[in-house]
C-alpha cells in the first residue's frame, strides 16, 4: 500500500510541476526532441529517488536540481553534433531561471493564462498557422510547401505572430500584476 501511495503522490506532484520543469529544460536546450528525451530521464531519476524527498513543498526545487544536472549531461552529448550554448552560460541561465521561478511561483501559470487569451485575440489565420506549426509532427518545410510559401517566409510569419503574442502577454501580465 505504501508503494501505491508513493506512486500516487509522485504522479500528483510530477503532473503539478511537469510544465514548469519542461519549460526550464526547453529554455536551456531550445529543442523539442531533446527536451522530451531529457524529461524522460528526469522523471525516471525523480521517481527512483522519490523516497528521499521529505517535504512535498520542496518537489519543484528538487526537480530543478535534477533537471539542471540532466540538462548539462545531455548538453555534453548534444554538443558533439549540433550547436548548443556553452556549459558556463547554461549554468548561469539555469541559476537565474530557478531563482526567478521560485520567487515568482505564479508567473508560469500567468504566462499560460495570458497565452490562452492572446491566442484567442489573434486573427484566425494567424492562430491557425502558429498552432499548426508548433504541433509535434509538423515539418515547417512541408507546411510551407502546402501553403505555397518559402520556409523563410513562414518562419518570418511565425516570428511576427510570436512577437504579437509576446507583446500581448506582457500587457496582460502587467495588468494582472497591477
Amino acid at each position, binding site marked *: 500500500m505504501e508503494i501505491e501511495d508513493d506512486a500516487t503522490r509522485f504522479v500528483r506532484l510530477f503532473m503539478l510541476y511537469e510544465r514548469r520543469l519542461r519549460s526550464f529544460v526547453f529554455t536551456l536546450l531550445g529543442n523539442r526532441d531533446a527536451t522530451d528525451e531529457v524529461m524522460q530521464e528526469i522523471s525516471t531519476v525523480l521517481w527512483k529517488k522519490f523516497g528521499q524527498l521529505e517535504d512535498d513543498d520542496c518537489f519543484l526545487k528538487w526537480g530543478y536540481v535534477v533537471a539542471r544536472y540532466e540538462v548539462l549531461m545531455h548538453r555534453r552529448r548534444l554538443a558533439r553534433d549540433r550547436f548548443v550554448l556553452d556549459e558556463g552560460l547554461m549554468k548561469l541561465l539555469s541559476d537565474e531561471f530557478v531563482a526567478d521561478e521560485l520567487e515568482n511561483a505564479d508567473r508560469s501559470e500567468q504566462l499560460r493564462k495570458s497565452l*490562452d487569451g492572446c491566442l484567442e485575440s489573434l486573427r484566425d489565420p494567424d492562430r491557425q498557422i502558429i498552432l499548426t506549426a*508548433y504541433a509535434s509532427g509538423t515539418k515547417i518545410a512541408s507546411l510551407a510547401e502546402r501553403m505555397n510559401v518559402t520556409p523563410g517566409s513562414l518562419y518570418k510569419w511565425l516570428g511576427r505572430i510570436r512577437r504579437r503574442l509576446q507583446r500581448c502577454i506582457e500587457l496582460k501580465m502587467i495588468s494582472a500584476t497591477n
Partner: protein
Amino acid sequence: MIDHPKDSSVPKSTLTELIDQYCFGSIDEVGLEQLQQLLRDSRAHRDQFRQEMQLHAALHEVADSLVSDLLSDTDRLDLQSPPGQVASLSVWPSLGEGVEHAVFGSPVERSQAAKLSINRLNRNFFSRIGAAVSGLLLGIILTTAIWAATASARTRVLNIFHDSFESGPSPVASGSPMEPDAWGGDHAKIVEALPSIQPANGKRMLRFLRADYVGKDPPTGHMGDVYRVIDLQGHTSELSHGDTLAAVEAAFGSVPFDESQLFHAKLTMYALAKLPADEAAWHVLIRAPVHLAEGSLASASRRQELSSDITWQQLSLEMRLPSEARYLLIGLHVADGYAARKHGSSPPAVEFEGQFADDVRVTLRRASDRD
C-alpha cells in the same frame, strides 16, 4: 557576470532573430557565438531570452495538447482499420489525405506525436482552438473545391490568354503596351524565384521595379502599372451576341514587409474599339485612369491590400464586353500606399523592393452559360 550599461545598443530584433534561429536549429557557428556573447553581456538579454524561450515552450505545449486530443480519436479509429491501413480522421471527414498529412505529418509521426504529448489542457479552450485548426483545413479544402468547380465550368469557357511569364521579354518601360502581344508600362522585369518568394506558377514571375517609365516627366508616381493588349478580333462572332463576359485573374505577391508599410494590388481591364494611333496617344489615354475609363467602351477594376503575411493573393474581375469591342486592355498595378499618404498622388517615383504579379489569365464566356 558584469552587466554592460549599453544593453539598449543591441536591437531587440537581433536578439530575437538569433533566438529563433537557435530554436529552429538553423543557427550557425557565428550566430551562436553572437547569441552567447549577448547573453553573457547582459542580464536584460538573458531575461528576454528566457521569456522568448518560455513562449516557444508554451506554444509547443498548447499545440501538442491539441494534436494529442485529436489523435486520441485517430488511435481509436486505427484499432478498427485493417493492418497497414490508417483510418481517416472522423472529426474532419472531408479532409484529403494530402492536407491531413501536411498539417499533422505521416501516421508514424502522428503516433510519435501522441506518445510525446503528456499534458491535457482545458478542453473548452481546445474545442475552440480545434475549430480554428479545422477552419484552416476547411479553407484549404474549399480553395481546392473552388478550383475544381472552375475547371468544370471551363467546358463552356474560352481561354484566350494565359501568361505566367515563363517566356517572352520583360515589359517595355515605355509607359504603355504600344501593341498587342507584349507587356508594357512602368519599369518591371521578368525574374526567377528569389529566396524570399517563389513564383505563383512556373519558374518566373513579373517583378514591379519602379512607378515610372523611361522619359516620364516628371518621374513621379506611387503605382507601378504594366499593361497588355489582348486582340479580340478573332472572337467577333462571340462578341456579336452582346452578352459575352470577359474575366481576368492574376496573382499578386510580395515579400514580407513591415507593418508600417502598405501595398495595394490592382487589376484593371478596359474594352477598346480601336488602339491609340501612337505613343503620344497612348500616354494621353493611360496617364490618368479617368481618361482610360472615358476612352473605353467598358471598364472594370478591383483593388486589394496586400497582406504582409500571405505571399500570393488572387485577384479577379469580370465585365460584359460590348459587341463593338475589338481589344481588351488589361492592367496589373501595385501601389505603395505609404508613399501616396505621405506625398499625395505625385511622390517621387517609388522603387518597389519586392512586389510581383504572376499567372495572368483571361477568359471569355457567354452570360447565358452562367447557370
